[in-house]
């Protein structure tokens, strides 16, 4: 089976650009990805594109062909919608297409336009990732659902808001050097603790921002990379996906993410690695508590202990396993449909030594990208390794 090479990546700045259309954002990301890869547009066999709320934010469905046009490629294009895991799911299918020989070159990515909706509109749009009848109509918001998990975690395993605050502080610190990040400013624990409450126990600084942005990645087969002398030292060597019941109240555990555990186990086995091999990870920290649940699901921390990982320095840039060196969703931003592909881009750059924070992980050979949808009713995990 062929390794799937990351030939090039492109990101727009993540942030607030309410006037920019999704097609404009994705065009920019794709131009950068093609420039980075040196792969001609003519060679692309397919576009797999992630987007979540396009109908609500842009009155635009059927975005696949639109984005192929925006990227200047003549190839079949399909949109993937899996809430916040939309482009993670697209990457997974792209990997499988290249592996099975169906395609040699795939453009995979995603975009989201959100800030034009305003806070209320974006809150409403994000909420549709939950069960409309049984959760949203009871007043559940996206932060509210994660708050239910945070409270359940505190009740079951202990921990307090201050522990979570250290996660936000760490991810902001990491974003200082990332010129694509929405927040390139340091915060302190006190800032998190004193911020206005959004949904107790989570406050404004426990939450990722509402963001506009796009990500694009050019994936190729190993044969194509060799034949065309591409500089593509990093491969996606493992892919996994997990699923869970839609509504949080239908889960067996309110403070765990079995879908992410399933996705992680599958991706580790696929790559032939285990959690002890992981040198760094980009995990889905839409809220501070989400990073805790992700670390535990990926076996990077024992169940019930992930809450102290940032506070005790295990996941900081100088720690044993740096987590979210890009700044994570928390500080880099979370344009929903672009997030999974952007994580792949960050991990690939960190491993290739081309990321501003690569110096924190100079010897790194193995990285993981974890992308979650809704309250983790969907999850994809990818393992990336240096192969050249």
């Amino acid at each position, binding site marked *: 089976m062929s390794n799937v090479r990351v030939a090039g990546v492109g990101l727009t700045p993540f942030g607030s650009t309410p006037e920019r259309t999704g097609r404009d954002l994705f065009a920019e990301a794709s131009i950068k990805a093609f420039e980075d890869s040196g792969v001609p547009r003519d060679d692309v066999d397919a576009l797999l594109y992630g987007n979540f709320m396009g109908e609500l934010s842009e009155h635009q469905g059927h975005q696949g062909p639109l984005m192929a046009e925006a990227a200047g490629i003549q190839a079949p294009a399909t949109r993937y919608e899996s809430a916040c895991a939309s482009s993670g799911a697209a990457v997974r299918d792209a990997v499988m297409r290249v592996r099975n020989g169906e395609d040699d070159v795939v453009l995979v990515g995603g975009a989201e336009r959100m800030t034009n909706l305003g806070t*209320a509109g974006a*809150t*409403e749009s994000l*909420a549709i990732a939950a069960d409309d009848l049984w959760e949203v109509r*009871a*007043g559940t918001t996206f932060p509210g659902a994660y708050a*239910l998990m945070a*409270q359940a975690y505190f009740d079951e395993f202990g921990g307090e808001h201050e522990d979570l605050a250290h996660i936000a502080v760490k991810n902001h610190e990491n974003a200082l050097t990332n010129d694509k990040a929405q927040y390139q400013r340091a915060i302190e624990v006190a800032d998190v603790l004193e911020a206005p409450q*959004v949904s107790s126990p*989570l406050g404004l600084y426990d939450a990722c921002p509402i963001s506009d942005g796009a990500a694009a990645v050019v994936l190729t087969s190993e044969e194509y990379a060799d034949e065309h002398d591409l500089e593509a030292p990093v491969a996606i060597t493992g892919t996994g996906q997990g699923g869970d019941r839609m509504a949080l109240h239908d889960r067996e555990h309110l403070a765990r993410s079995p879908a992410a555990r399933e996705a992680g186990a599958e991706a580790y086995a696929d790559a032939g690695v285990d959690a002890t091999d992981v040198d760094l990870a980009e995990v889905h920290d839409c809220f501070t508590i989400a990073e805790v649940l992700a670390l535990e699901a990926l076996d990077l921390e024992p169940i019930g202990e992930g809450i102290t990982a940032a506070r005790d320095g295990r996941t900081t840039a100088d720690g044993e396993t740096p987590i979210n060196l890009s700044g994570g969703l928390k500080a880099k931003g979370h344009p929903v449909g672009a997030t999974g592909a952007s994580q792949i881009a960050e991990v690939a750059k960190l491993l290739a030594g081309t990321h501003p924070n690569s110096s924190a992980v100079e010897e790194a050979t193995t990285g993981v990208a974890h992308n979650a949808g809704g309250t983790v009713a969907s999850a994809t995990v990818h393992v990336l390794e240096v192969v050249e």
Partner: protein
Amino acid sequence: MTDPETGVQDAGFDDWLDATEEGDAYYLECANGHGSLPPRRVCPDCGSTDLEEVPLPETGVIETFTVTHVPTPAFEDDAPYATAVADFGPVALTGQVVGIDLDAIETGLEVALEITVSETTGKRVIGFSPV
């Protein structure tokens, strides 16, 4: 009840709200004893299509809760309000905690179902009131 704004009725869900308002709340039980919420044709646990309406236990216990200060527009005038997951045994439900000080809500609190309405939209909302 048909939604006055959209003209849409959600069969199964609205029927459940009607029944619950009458004091006849139920859940669906399959031949293997798995509980689930309507509308549903297939048991999500085992795939059984033999589902029966069974009375919901009178009381449940709050498993986790949150007080939301930043709501969706549909609950703009309701904030701050508490949402909780309550375990009723065969099924768990998400609802708003009513009839209690927001500060007094805690995990383990025993509650009964009480259909309330959104102050913002007047639409029915699943509520939990302490017993």
